[in-house]
Structures are given as C-alpha cells and as structure tokens.
C-alpha cells in the first residue's frame, strides 16, 4: 500500500469538526430559552466542544499525518444496507412488522451475497431465512409479549 507512506491533511476530520462546531452554535442559540438551571450544562459543554473542534481544525491543517488505509469494498452496498435499514425502521409500524421484515431480510440477503447463486444455495438460504424470521418473531411476540405492530398488512 503506497498510500500508507503518504502524508496528508485530514480533510474529512476537519469537515466533521466544522459540522460539530455548527451544532455547538445551534445549541448555544437554543439554550437561551432554557431555565438558568437547565442551560448551565448545554452551554458549558457546547462551548468546550467548540474549542476542541477549533483546536482540531488548526492542528489537522498545520500538521498533516500519515494517511491511513483507504476505504475498501463496495460503497454502493454500504449505502444500500443503510437505506434498507432506515426504510425498514420507518415503515414497520405503519406497514406491519412481519411484512417489512420479510422484505428487508430478503434485500439484505441480496446485498450480502457474493458469488453465484446455485439452486441449493437459494434453497438453503430460503430455509434459513424463514427459520430465523419465524424463530425470533415468535420469541419476541409470544414468549416475551412484545407488541410487534401489525400495521396495514401484518
């Protein structure tokens, strides 16, 4: 890996620090509406956090560090997994827990699959999927009395 020897500025770190700095400003603005007692902590923490952010931005700009190993693998699959989980978490209470879970489970299986699909592989994954979904669904719903929402479908 030739990049490991390279010295670089931590630009993403600086960007994140800037965003967090912005969050600090928002906190300070909103804290003006709190009671005196309720605003001590938010104000202090936000102020300290902004100092740290500013310090990091300066240090990272002036003193480049050896660059770490870059991101490996498929970014598309990463984004896909996060998107599926986000949609799942938003939709399950209205659409139905079981329905969304079956769809999301299938989608994540596809996202995590590398190599070729053979008939036996499809069959074994199908059986495993149904078994896992059924087992945990029943464990939570029946044994632990968790009211998993049925929504429109199921």
């Amino acid at each position, binding site marked *: 890996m030739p990049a490991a020897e390279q010295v670089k500025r931590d630009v993403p770190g600086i960007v*994140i620090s800037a965003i967090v700095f912005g969050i600090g400003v928002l906190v300070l603005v*909103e804290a003006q509406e*709190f009671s005196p007692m309720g605003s001590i902590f938010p104000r202090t*923490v936000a102020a300290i956090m902004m100092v740290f952010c500013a310090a*990091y931005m300066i240090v990272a700009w002036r003193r480049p560090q050896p660059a770490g190993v870059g991101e490996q693998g498929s970014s598309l699959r990463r984004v896909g997994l996060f998107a599926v*989980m*986000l949609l*799942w978490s938003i939709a399950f209470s209205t659409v139905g827990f079981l329905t969304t879970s079956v769809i999301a489970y299938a989608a994540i299986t596809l996202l*995590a699959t590398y190599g070729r699909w053979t008939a036996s592989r499809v069959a074994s994954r199908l059986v495993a999927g149904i078994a896992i979904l059924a087992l945990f669904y029943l464990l939570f719903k029946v044994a632990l009395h968790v009211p998993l929402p049925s929504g429109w479908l199921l």
Partner: protein
Amino acid sequence: MTPVDFLLGALSVNNLLLSLLGVAAGIVIGALPGLTATMAVAVLVPFTFGMNAASGLIMLGAIYMGAIYGGSYSAILLNTPGTPSAIATTFEGYPMAKRGDGDLALTLACLVSVFGGLFGAFALLLIAPPMAQFALRFGPVEYFWFAVFGLTLIASLGEESMLKSLIGCCLGLLLAMIGLAEVGGDVRFTGGTSLLLGGIDIVAALIGLYCVPVLIDLVATPKPHLETSKHGAGFRLHDAMGVILRGKFNLMRSSVIGTIVGILPGAGGSIAAIVAYAEAKRGAKEGDGWGHGNPQGIVATESANNATVGGGLIPTLVLGIPGTPVDAVILGALLVQGIRVGPSLFSEQSSVSYVFMYGLIIATLIMLPVGLLLGRYAFKLIISIPKEVLTPAVAFMTILGSFAINNDANNVVQMVLLGGIGWVLGRFGFSVTPVVLGIILESIAESGFVQAYIIGGARGSLAGEFLGNPISMVIIGLIILSVVYATIRGRKRGSVNG
C-alpha cells in the same frame, strides 16, 4: 439456623434446576442485543410468584448473573454489547475475535465472569451492612465528581487523536440532553415534537453506534466476518488460565472496582467495566497491543461487570434502595412476595435472604460449565454461518431489540440513524466509545451538579458543598492524577510521532 442450613436450603434439587434454567436463559437473553438483564428479569418475575420466595429469588438472581455475562457474547463476536454492561468488552473482545481468537475470548470471559460474580456475591454475604453505609456517603456532589472522573477516563481509552475523542465525548453529552430533563424540568433539543421527548435511549444508541457500522462494513466485502480459529474452536482453557495467571492483580482490582461501583446506586455495570478497563490499561506497559485484542481487557471488564451483581444487591437488600434497574425489579418482586428488606434482614438472619445469597453463589458456579458450553456453540455458530445469512439475521435482531426496549418504534429509527452517524464518525477516526461514555455519564453529572447547586445555595456555601468533604476531595485528586497522566502520555506519544 446456621449457614450450613442456608447452604443446604439453596442446594435443593429444585433450586439447582432453577439456577441452571435461569443462568442458561439469562445468557441467551443477555447475548441478544436489545434484550437487557432488566427485561429478562421483568419478563420472568410473574413466573416466580407461583414458587416459594427463596426459589423465585434464586431464579431471578441466576438470570441476572447469566444476562450480564451473556452480554459478552455479542460484544466479542459482533462488536455489539448485548447489555450496556458489556460496552467495554467490545474494546478488546472484538479485535480478538476478528483475528481468530474468539474462542479464547469467550472462555476467558466465562472464567473471569464467574470469578467476578463470586467476588461480588461474597461481598454481599459477608460485608453488606458496612458497605451499604459507604454507599450512603455518596450524595449529589460525590456523584457529580464521580461522573467527571469517568469522563477523564476517555484519555485512557482512545488510541486515536485525543482531540477527536474529546469532541466525540461532548457530542455524546449533548445527545443525552435531548428530551425532558427530569431534574430541572426543561424540555431540550426536541425540535418541538413529542417524538424526542423521552430522549435518546441508551440501549438503542448502543445497538446503533456499535452494531450498525459492523453490518455496513460486513456487506461491503466478500471477506468472512471473523477469522476461523487456528485452534479448531476448542475451549482453550489452558491459554485462558495463562492469561488469568498473568493478570491476577488485574482480576482482583477489577472485581473490587466492580463491587464498589455496583454498590453506588445509579452507576451500574457499564461504568464499572469502563473504569476497570481504563485502570487495567493504565497499569500496563505502553504498547502491549491495547485496543488490538489484548486479553487483559476482557479480564478487567467481564470480572468487573459481574461483580456489580452482588455489589448492586447490597444497597437493595440492606437499605431497600435498588443499585441498578434490575435490582429495582428484584426489589419489586420481593415486595409483591411480602418480604421486607432492610438492616434487619441481615441481623435477624432471615432465612429467605440468606438462602438467596447462597443461591446466587451456586448459580454463579453453575455458570462456569453452562457458559463454557454455550460460548463454544455461539462461537461455532457465528463463524460457520455464511455472511448472507448472518447479516440479515443480525440486522433483524437489531430492529427487534431496539423496538423491544420500550415497545417504541421511535427508538428503532434513532438506532438506525445513530448507526449511520457512528459509521461516518468511525470511518474518519472519531471512535464511538467517547460518544457512548458521554451519553451514559451525562445524567449522573448534570443531575448531581444541579442538586448540589440547589443544596449548596440553601445551606449558604457553594464552595463548601462542592469541595468540602473527604470523598469529594479524594475523587478530585483522582481526576487531577488522571488528567496529569493523560497529558504526560500524550506528550510522549506526540514526541514519538512528531
């Protein structure tokens, strides 16, 4: 009755079976992210009503002990603390599993959990009344300083940039302020909706911040989740005993820390394990592979968190003040059973409570074979399941688990969003652990501060309230030492790098 009678009472076939069942159920529940020890005990309380009081309590104690240990399974194998107590176990446990030492990590966790659990249980049996008096010395000010001390430990946790850790910690503190402040009554940072009124749930945050990033990286490459063991997935008892013998002092110190932190109502296993981890790391030499799978980390965290079980029961049984949320459920069960707790429970040698304490010790011993066996199966299961089955199954568990905490769909959305944030932060060198530490310590620090401020104001001496008592001064001393140590070490590292 004599101690032998109590011991024999606890040793009845019925009680032994209940312990076995309780420990096994506890381990499974603790290993599933989202199902915490509190929930495990709360769900099983009704079943104990049909039993006699001692048997019911023994089963609850066994579940509790098992669940705290079970949390280490998912911490080691999936980088996801199964219960908050297992947060610090991820630090060294997951790197160990990644490089193929998952079997060793699980065996080690079992051995030291049993040791820590026994340590706490014996403290409960032998020195409970004086220890409970110690817990009472901790007022709002002491809790405030204790939380500040906890925050300084970040310095010993992070391997990455110190400034980044500090930024993460502040972010965690602010996240924990979202919602209605029970002390003070302000509604903060909710954006005006009732969705965030309850604030960010700690368990949901844990699942999101630790587990979702693992899932995201899991789908990105065809590489297997964990390296398979070079040792053919055995118990590796011999290796584990070697680690423990080398870390004798670490084991003792961590068990003491766990017991003491457990006694303080409101602190809990997560903080105990983090303190024990930081102390173990500080006590060790530079390097030694900390953060990259040093088994001494597991020795520290798993003995400390299991020691909090016995420790937390001390104020519960002696004072009637629950040490942890699980203890609150156990106390409720005692009340429903019609048992009065309090100092008399110990002085009058009440048979139920003594049978319970011996039962807890026996349950901890039973955990040794059960834990070793279940750990081995869990390890084999996780390394043999192909990626395209493991990923959706774990994702399903995170959704189920984060819903089950409060039966609230909002917690699930919180979990996933925090997971995305956690991945971005982790990718760019901001570790999530300082964020989590901030979330956990915020309420202890802030409510302690507000209360001390009000009390100091009423008594007319703020300085006296905050500084003028021996325990506060000791903790402030520890804070100063901790900061000084961190600065010196930071300098050293800086000079090596620069």
